[in-house]
């Protein structure tokens, strides 16, 4: 009323100019590497140093604590003969297939639990309970049901990862601000359109956290299953390799196997989940943890 409109327009333009986000300039490549790449390398080097020192002090006999170099030689040998790749492939393809199957089962399951009250009341807490049950506990039963076959291994992997993924999705959906689906309804979204364009994307951070945990659970369940359920027809995976090392009293093999198991875990995290998570969180302005 009191202020003429063209003055207000100017004020508005001024506000906008002040409000336009300032682009943060990116640090150069080497500086970013210095910040994120160097600390883990130093930590690893320190760990190796402590190990070498312990070995040199000869507190433990050689068959319990080998020198880092002999473990390295065992790794180089198994890589050189191609054994490492076949072992990794056997385990990895089982884990990946198991994980994909788990995602396909857990996603509709999670949606059902999150959106249908009766289903949540019926099996919600069971699913949470299953998450805390170590999946190794399923190995004896699975062997009795399926024998020492791939089915046993896949069963154990599924029991390990399905609860995590489903629970992650449920948590993701529960944390959606109620205003967003309301806006969807006001904009004319039907149930299906709302699920696809609002619920699922809004639940994505929680779902992704569930996927990440589900992968970790499927990988460790697989290792447990492979260590316990060994038979020639199953081929040699990382778990069998580890088991063989223990049977042969070969500590080099055991540590090399543990190293490979860790390597896969870290590799998948760094190459798949970390970039995915970053992209999802950055798009929402949740950059605090990055």
């Amino acid at each position, binding site marked *: 009323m009191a202020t003429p409109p063209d003055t*207000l327009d100017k*004020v508005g333009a001024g506000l*906008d100019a002040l409000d336009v986000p300032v682009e943060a300039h990116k640090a150069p490549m080497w500086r970013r590497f210095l910040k994120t790449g160097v600390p883990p390398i130093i930590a690893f080097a320190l760990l190796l140093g402590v190990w070498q020192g312990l070995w040199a002090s000869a507190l433990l006999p050689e068959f319990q604590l080998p020198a880092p170099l002999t473990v390295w030689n065992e790794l180089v040998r198994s890589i050189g003969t191609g054994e490492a790749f076949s072992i990794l492939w056997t385990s990895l393809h089982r884990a990946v297939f198991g994980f994909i199957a788990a995602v396909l089962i857990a996603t509709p399951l999670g949606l059902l639990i999150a959106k249908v009250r009766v289903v949540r009341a019926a099996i919600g807490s069971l699913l949470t309970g299953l998450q805390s049950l170590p999946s190794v506990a399923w190995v004896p039963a699975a062997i009795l049901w399926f024998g020492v076959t791939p089915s046993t291994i896949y069963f154990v992997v599924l029991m390990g990862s399905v609860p995590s993924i489903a629970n992650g999705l449920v948590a993701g959906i529960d944390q959606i601000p109620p*205003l*967003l689906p309301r806006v969807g309804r*006001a*904009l004319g979204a039907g149930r299906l359109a709302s699920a696809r*364009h609002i619920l699922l994307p809004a639940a994505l951070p929680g779902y992704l956290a569930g996927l990440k945990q589900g992968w970790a659970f499927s990988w460790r369940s697989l290792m447990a299953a492979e260590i316990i359920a060994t038979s020639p027809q199953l081929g040699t995976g990382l778990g069998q390799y580890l088991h063989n090392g223990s049977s042969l009293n070969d500590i080099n093999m055991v540590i090399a196997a543990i190293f490979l198991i860790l390597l896969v875990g870290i590799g998948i995290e760094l190459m798949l989940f970390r970039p995915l998570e970053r992209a999802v969180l950055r798009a929402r*302005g949740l950059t605090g943890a990055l």
Partner: protein
Amino acid sequence: MTATLETTVLSTVDTAVELAGVRKVFGHGNSAVVALDGVDLKVKPGEFVCLLGASGCGKSTLLNIVAGLDGATSGSLQLNTSRPAVMFQEPALMPWLTAARNVELALRFAGVGRLARKRRALELLKLVRLGDVADKRPHELSGGMRQRVALARALASTTVSADGAPALLLMDEPFAALDAITRDVLQSELLRVWETTNTAIIFVTHDVREAVRLGQRVVLLSSRPGRVVREWDVTDSSDAVLNEINTHLREVISGHAS
């Protein structure tokens, strides 16, 4: 200047929204709360009506009923408009979508094709003077800018109807969470948009000054239960009307002191 409207003189032909005897009760039995009790309201196409009232007068409930987000317990609602668009106190933009995609979302739900969607979204963003930040995400925008994106999205959802039915925009205290200067700017922005788009607007507020500045007509609701107390034509707003409405609002509120 100060005139109470005769609502009955409006014929149904030039009515965008007609509420008759709308009643809304929450809960059952002894704990039941009557939020709205026999509300009659008519809005003409292109008219700007402000619903004014203190807390608990059911103004948001009334808006939700018109929006179709909530059903009335009894009474009738007639809409001669395209799908009503709603704007809330919070912008409620999808945080994972850019400003342009947020506007496009409304058009997507209405079944508009991809290219037409892109063009229309940019048009609407330009209308609220945000053409330059179309590819920014909500967290990169200020509160005022976000609310303008929400306005563009609301306009997108109400102006797509093919049959040329008049548009209707429902606003639930959309500027209440903004600072004074931004609110001032956005109010003039809204008036400009209203004049260019000829959209009927029902604007809920508890701020008398805002209601008088924006609306052509101010409707005062009483609290618990919500009823229409009085209406003012405020096209030629003056301080006298402002004071009169203020006095009535105070009366309504002090009636609840026990």
